[in-house]
């Protein structure tokens, strides 16, 4: 079972991943929670959700999260993919999911997910992390909390320096 780190109420903890990540060429198992690609979800999602299944969607960096706007209330999670740590599009995807589309479910960082990105990910509204570098929840908490101050408003509730100063 791959390690997952979840953020809830300001605390990071190890969590069991109850979802099965389904590649496009693989069959969907008869039971259990699944994560599908956006295209697969658009083709088969209605039937699965209608059957009471728990479904999440995997969004690649070149896919627009806006395409999920009307489906978000039915989704258990949105996984934003980092094909490489350097590919920063998922930060925008997560930000838009939270700020513009009002999504309140899990936003999970998957792919090339390293502890050095923890602070950025948390600030963009991601609340579940599948680290690729073996980081523990403690590592993640330390990395995400490394800076006592932040200079700008983001998705998280941290007050920017200009509010601290106020």
């Amino acid at each position: 079972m791959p390690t997952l780190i979840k953020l809830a109420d300001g605390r990071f903890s190890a969590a069991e991943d109850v979802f099965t990540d389904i590649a496009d060429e693989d069959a969907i198992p008869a039971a259990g929670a699944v994560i599908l690609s956006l295209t697969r979800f658009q083709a088969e999602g209605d039937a699965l959700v209608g059957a009471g299944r728990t479904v999440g969607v995997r969004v690649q960096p070149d896919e627009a999260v806006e395409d999920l706007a009307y489906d978000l209330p039915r989704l258990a999670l949105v996984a934003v993919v980092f094909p490489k740590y350097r590919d920063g599009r998922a930060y925008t995807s997560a930000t838009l999911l939270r700020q513009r589309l009002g999504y309140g479910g899990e936003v999970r960082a998957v792919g090339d997910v390293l502890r050095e990105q923890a602070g950025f990910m948390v600030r963009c509204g991601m609340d579940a992390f599948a680290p690729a570098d073996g980081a523990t929840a403690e590592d993640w908490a330390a990395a995400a909390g490394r800076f006592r101050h932040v200079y700008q408003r983001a998705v998280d509730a941290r007050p920017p320096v200009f509010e601290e100063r106020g």
Partner: protein
Amino acid sequence: MYRYDAIDREFVADRAAEFRGQVARRLAGELTEDQFKPLRLMNGLYLQLHAYMLRVAIPYGSMDSRQLRRLAHIARTYDKGYGHFTTRQNLQLNWIKLGDTPDILDQLAEVDLHAIQTSGNCIRNVTADPYAGATAEEIDDPRVWSEVIRQWSTLHPEFSFLPRKFKFAVTASAKDRTAARVHDIGLVLRRSRDGALGFEVIVGGGQGRTPYVGPTIREHLPVGSLLSYLQAILRVYNRHGRRDNIYKARIKILVAALGKEEFARQVEEEWSKIDSAPADLPDTELARIRGAFTPLAFDSLPARSETFEAAKAASPALARFARNNVKPHKKPGYAIVEISLKAHHATPGDASAEQMETVADLAERYSLDDVRATHEQNLVLPHVKLDDLPAVHGALEAAGLATPNIGLISDIIACPGLDYCALANARAIPIAQAIAQRFEDADRAELIGELKIKISGCINACGHHHVGNIGILGVDKKGEEFYQLSLGGSGQEDASLAQILGPGMSADKVPDAIEALVDTYLSARTGQERFLDTVRRLGMAPFKEAVYADAH
């Protein structure tokens, strides 16, 4: 200058502590070079030809004497006793040991300096007018807006992994000393007809292998909307900029591919969806930042200094320095003094630890504790009393810093080139030195007047050859260094890209070619025409003929 408060200091200290941990993990073998590379690059640490190079951010080129002395101390203690001021107003230390870098960052943090975002695909240190707060030309202080951008962009959660690096320039003067039109975003402060302060927003300029003069996508953005509008631009770029090819990843490629109108439309559409209240800076914070720039205590002085006039009459050297390196100040009795880092035998932009200390002392004593670095790789004492100019000039002369060549033919921008850089194809520094020595005669240099030569050792164009009045590009031709000349570029308000003159030549032919270009200009110019104006009027033909005549 902007005074850090406890929060700004804690932020920089946290960053230094983070990097100390990362270096320890690297030295202990817990991180491979591949894993460490992105971490060190986020702290301005490059691995160059011979050693690590550390690029220290000098926010919008502004320092006090304490900071400059600390840079001198670091250069002396951890490097070979000198540093290199870059075209983006930063300081590069060329001979750094990895194990020393945490201590260096701590030493920088003690004086409110750092290397945050001096490399990596993030928003880099902002370039601003080095005459900010001193020139009568400006309609507002560009440092205030540069500081707003510095804070907003520091570890920005959404925009720290862009397709490619991202550079801002901010100016508030009609005369552009920042090369705003060849930056990713150039912001030019302007007043509208009704007097409201706004930015002309220029996006998608740049140099490198695909140079562009950036188009204006908005003529007048109200200043209070700056951050929400920048967020819209950066978001469009972060989502749609190319990531498949490092050479096509800058925003200029996206703007050119979409066209200015379509790019602007996408930005406006995104901007209309952004909730401006949380995105823009509250007026109270803007006022706080403005107030955190120490108000300067200028004396009330007569516009003319008899002391200075008498000293000039007695000293031709001072008179020449005054003609070329001393610029008008907004306050009567004061002047802006440019310190050339282009002595004729020196490396453009280099300053020794002793020279930095001399400049720091002069800044503290004579310039309200203010020093600037310029994008043309010189230093500025922005607030010197005319009465003090003879003393300042004398001290600069003693330190080898009084070269009277600002804006003249030997005030050359050059990248570090093959002497240091892992990317270079050819050396740039010796070419600059050879040209400077050829035109060492100061009377002749003044007769020639404004002439900007810019030299890059490879196509990445760090030496700005695309916007040189004369640009020189080093190329590798079957293992030999060759140099390609171009003419007619400008990085200023009248920005244009230089055009290639003709076939490349070997290094020893370059000074003769420059001589031929200058002679052609001198015999063809009319009135007050600058070299650039003559090139624009006559076109390339007579210059090409002069340089390549022997080849017929």
